[in-house]
């Protein structure tokens, strides 16, 4: 029980604490009893016994803290009682001497502080003297834990009593200078107590727990109202820095420097920066300077930005560089220091790129000297490097500005491919988020440089893992999105076309893994351009030719996409989309281009889609698309429709054939075309419709499954009726009636089931529609 080494386990600590608290409660109770009878000496005796518990050696800081809190709470009671008494003039001055007879020093000092405070509150004594006496006498407790808590008690009980007047009003009350002196002394002593000891490892943990006690001094100091900048400069800071520098202990120094930075106002820091930074250079080798410097830079930058203080940056840069050159700092810390520097540069001098440039240049130089390369994004250096690059991204946002930092790209190249991609992607994300457009060729070139890892297949070889990785896909998607940022300044379609063709070239270098992400995006950008051209038709020379070029480029894109393989349905749909877009903008060659797009998509259906389901759905899509067009010639429509009918009847399943035929029948009827005179007409080819439907009926009849057959027949019936009601003479009432009859026949064979009921419903609905017109013959 005698040495510090005897710290107990936490369970034992709990028990120990409980014991101690029991004594505290008992003695506190006795103390209050005597107080009630105004028997001060007896009360103080119990207070002393109570405080004797604070002499313990066995509690860890956490438990000691609880004991301290409880004991000092009880002292609070004593203090307020005596203060009351003192106000009535009943608190003898001798008490201050009386309590000093206590044999043990810890209780003695706690009582001295308490009585001293009472006397100061009552104005019975010379404040400055008492404060001085207390802060000096506390030296007697050299045990770190007990000393720190004792001095913390001193600081916290005296907090409202400290002189805080700029001038001395009453001689014995002192001025703010005395308060500063008090804090500095106490702080110095606490810092010594807190300092490292021989049993290093064990104490290190404890010290982290105790540091806040030391920090309290600073907080109180900063709360003095009359602490002005000049006093701070001449008295406080030199005192504190001297303490900090002279304690030669990294933990203390780091914490205390941070304390200074955090507790005092920004303008103090700005005024004292030179002193502060020069002290930084004298700190212990192991102090994490990055933290300290970053911290102070963060504090002053807002203020500095307002003041436009030009020296500030060079002051910091100078300090940082001298620290980097004289100390053996980890590389990641060096980078991180540059992050802070760059933040400062961006915050204060965003427009003057040279400030930020120096930061990045010097970082590049340092890293090159160290031979840093191929850093992954999870290595500490890589992580910091990404941060420093992101910093520029966040500050400038636009790639056009980022490339003004000449060292940006070389710095990026110190990362590995993955990390580089990440940096590039985050630039794009930033631009997308802020809607920063790429408005000219120069900016596009900048993008090309920075985005190389995302774009360029030659310089960056991808592994299979890369390609399948989520990151890759996300990044490429981002790149795809970013293509929409290409927007030529001033709505000039020609300029935009130029930019987009450059983009096409850029994207083209991406290789088969990237193109699927980027080309569709480009394509839609081209469609948008086409719309723009349409709006500006009158302003543009050689309009038809330019439109053609746009659409050719689009076709080229789709073709490229198609060529690299992969899923065919995307090029298919893109072709269709392209056709529809072209169809809405009639220009010289548009019919043939529309036809080209459609025929290309049709050939994809024919040649590549093997899965019958997707084939069918593609046919439906295509049919719809063709039905929508208006600019094709009669022949073209016929060709396409015939071909579709052909593919339809060659489908693998009978049911599919029927459905496809039903849908394509309308191509011959309602599709609009343009005749030689440029007039828009509908096909109205009843013969064709009839033959297609007849074929469908035939196929339907061959269908072996009765339920499917019934369904198909109902479908055909509906389609027939729609043609009939639209005035198609080849579809006669008779034929409809006949089909109805066949439906009924087939249906009769069905067993009663949910399905068959559904069929009943279908048929009845169809019949309801047809009623009115052909009722009489229907109900045979």
């Amino acid at each position, binding site marked *: 029980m*005698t*040495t510090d080494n005897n710290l107990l386990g936490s369970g034992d600590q709990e028990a120990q604490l409980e014991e101690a608290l029991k004594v505290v409660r008992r003695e506190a109770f006795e103390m209050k009893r005597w107080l009630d009878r105004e028997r001060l*000496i007896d009360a*103080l*005796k119990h207070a*002393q016994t109570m405080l004797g518990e604070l*002499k313990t050696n066995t509690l860890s800081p956490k438990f000691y803290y609880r004991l301290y809190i409880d004991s000092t709470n009880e002292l609070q009671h004593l203090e307020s009682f005596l203060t009351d008494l003192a106000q009535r003039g009943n608190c003898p001055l001798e008490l201050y*001497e*009386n*309590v*000093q*007879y*206590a*044999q*043990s*020093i*810890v209780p*003695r000092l706690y*009582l001295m502080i308490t009585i001293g405070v009472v006397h100061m509150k009552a104005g019975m004594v010379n404040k400055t003297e008492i404060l001085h006496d207390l802060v*000096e*006498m506390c*030296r*007697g*407790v*050299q*045990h*770190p834990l*007990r*000393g720190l808590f004792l001095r913390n008690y001193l600081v916290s009980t005296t907090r409202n009593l400290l002189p805080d007047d700029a001038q001395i009003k009453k001689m014995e009350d002192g001025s703010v200078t005395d308060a500063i002196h008090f804090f500095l002394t106490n702080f110095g002593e606490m810092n*010594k107590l807190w*300092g490292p000891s021989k049993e290093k490892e064990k104490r290190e943990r404890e010290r982290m727990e105790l540091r806040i006690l030391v920090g309290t001094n600073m907080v109180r100091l900063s709360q003095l109202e009359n602490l002005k900048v000049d006093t701070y400069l001449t008295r406080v800071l030199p005192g504190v820095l001297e303490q900090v520098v002279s304690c030669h202990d990294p933990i203390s120094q780091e914490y205390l420097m941070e304390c200074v930075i955090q507790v005092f106002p920004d303008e103090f820091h700005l005024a004292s920066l030179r002193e502060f930074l020069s002290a930084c250079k004298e700190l212990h080798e192991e102090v994490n300077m990055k933290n300290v410097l970053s911290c102070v830079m963060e504090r002053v930058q807002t203020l500095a930005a307002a003041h436009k203080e030009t020296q500030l940056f060079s002051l910091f840069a100078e300090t940082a560089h001298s620290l980097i050159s004289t100390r053996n700092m980890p590389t990641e810390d060096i980078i991180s220091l540059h992050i802070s520097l760059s933040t400062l540069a961006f915050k204060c001098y965003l427009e003057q790129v040279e400030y930020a440039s120096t930061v990045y240049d010097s970082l590049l130089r340092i890293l090159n000297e160290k031979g840093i390369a191929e850093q992954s994004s999870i290595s500490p250096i890589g992580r910091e490097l990404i941060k420093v690059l992101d910093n520029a991204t966040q500050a400038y946002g636009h790639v056009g500005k980022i490339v003004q930092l000449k060292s940006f790209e070389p710095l990026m190249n110190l990362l590995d491919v993955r990390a580089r991609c990440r940096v590039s992607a985050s630039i794009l994300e930033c631009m997308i988020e802020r809607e920063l457009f790429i408005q000219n060729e120069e900016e596009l070139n900048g993008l090309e440089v920075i985005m190389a890892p995302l774009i360029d297949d030659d310089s960056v070889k991808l592994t299979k893992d890369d390609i399948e990785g989520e990151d890759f896909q996300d990044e490429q998607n981002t790149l795809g999105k970013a293509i929409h940022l290409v927007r030529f300044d001033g709505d000039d379609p020609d300029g935009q076309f130029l930019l987009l063709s450059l983009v096409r070239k850029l994207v083209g270098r991406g290789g088969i893994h990237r193109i699927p992400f980027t080309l569709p995006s480009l394509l839609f950008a081209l469609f948008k351009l086409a719309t723009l051209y349409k709006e500006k038709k009158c302003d543009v020379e050689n309009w038809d030719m330019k439109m053609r070029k746009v659409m050719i480029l689009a076709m080229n894109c789709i073709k490229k996409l198609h060529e690299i393989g992969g899923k065919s349905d995307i090029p298919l749909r893109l072709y269709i989309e392209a056709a529809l877009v072209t169809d809405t903008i009639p220009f010289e060659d548009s019919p043939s281009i529309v036809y080209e797009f459609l025929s290309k998509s049709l050939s994809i259906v024919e040649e590549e889609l093997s899965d019958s389901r997707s084939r069918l759905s593609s046919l439906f899509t295509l049919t719809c698309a063709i039905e929508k067009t208006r600019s094709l010639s009669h022949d073209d429509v016929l060709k396409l429709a015939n071909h579709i009918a052909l593919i339809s009847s060659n489908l693998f399943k009978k049911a599919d054939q029927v459905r496809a035929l039903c849908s394509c029948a309308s191509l011959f009827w309602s599709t609009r075309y343009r005749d030689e005179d440029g007039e828009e007409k509908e096909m109205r080819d009843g013969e064709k419709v009839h033959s297609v439907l007849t074929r469908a009926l035939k196929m339907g009849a061959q269908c072996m499954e009765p339920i499917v057959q019934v369904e198909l027949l109902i479908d055909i019936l509906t389609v027939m009726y729609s043609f009939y009601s639209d005035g198609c003479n080849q579809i006669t009432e008779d034929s409809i009636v006949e089909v109805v009859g066949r439906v009924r026949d087939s249906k009769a064979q069905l067993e009663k089931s949910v399905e068959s009921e559904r069929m009943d419903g279908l048929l009845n609905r169809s019949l309801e529609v047809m009623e009115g017109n052909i009722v009489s013959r229907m109900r045979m």
Partner: protein
Amino acid sequence: MASLFGFGQSAEVVIKLDDHDTRPTAKIRNDDGTLETHYLFLDGETVSGTVDVNLKKAGVKLEHQGIRIEFIGQIEVYYDRGNQHDFISLTKDLARPGELIDQRNSFQFEFANPEKPFESYMGTNVKLRYLLKVTIVRRLTDIVKEMELIVHTLSSYREEMNQNIKMEVGIEDCLHIEFEYNKNKYHLRDVIVGKIYFLLVRIKIKYMELTIIKRETVGGGANSFNENETIARYEIMDGAPVRGESIPIRLFLGGYDLTPTMRDVSKKFSVKYLLNLVLIDEEDRRYFKQQATTPMALPEPASPELERSVDEDDRGRGGENGVGDGSSSNGPKAVEAQ
């Protein structure tokens, strides 16, 4: 014999000082540890008063061989009880042999400016006391009445004669300290103020304390006999200091049971006080600053005005001084005197 059987006259003797209502009193610790209060005198002060002899039986006369009063200064060593040493013995006759007829008789007495060279003292092995003793000499049994007096000696107290003590001591390569006390002589209500500088600390100090030891020496030469008693034990530092640390000392003496230093009183005994600085390390080894404890002339000289204040404070404070731990309250463990 007459009185023995009840026929003789007996008398009550009362000694009354002339200035009994104005003379200060002082307390002294008795053999059994209780405090006794007596009138206080200083060296050279006249002791005068009246002795009243009141006969108990009216109408019966008291025959006597003379009545006298003595002023005695006496040293008594406990282990040598029979051998009391009177260093002062002054006698005044109050009445020639004869008889007392009146029931009330009153006699004036005066010892003009008697020498009272020593301080009253009640120690572990020795006591020094002053008393007035009235004896009515009779054929068989004398009637005796004693009145004890307390004497405080005063010393001139000259600040400039008082030097501070500064000394550097240590154990080689282990501990090196320098201590400083503000004075080498303290009066009884003084405060010891000092500082200890740690020049080198290589031991794990747990705490440091200051003790005041009273050393009572009886006899002289080879036969001298020492008795040490710790009067005060006072922790002045908790924990281990670092190099260069200075620890303040402040010890109020007023709360402890101290007497002035006495040197070779009547060649019978001495009382000295030692101020002892003790460091205790984590293995509970005690490092006495033996060099440091050169006999401190502790409360040797006391200025007159401070002497007086001893008196007043003692009256108010009694034995319970502040919240002291009571280490001072174990009075002299004397051989019980009959």
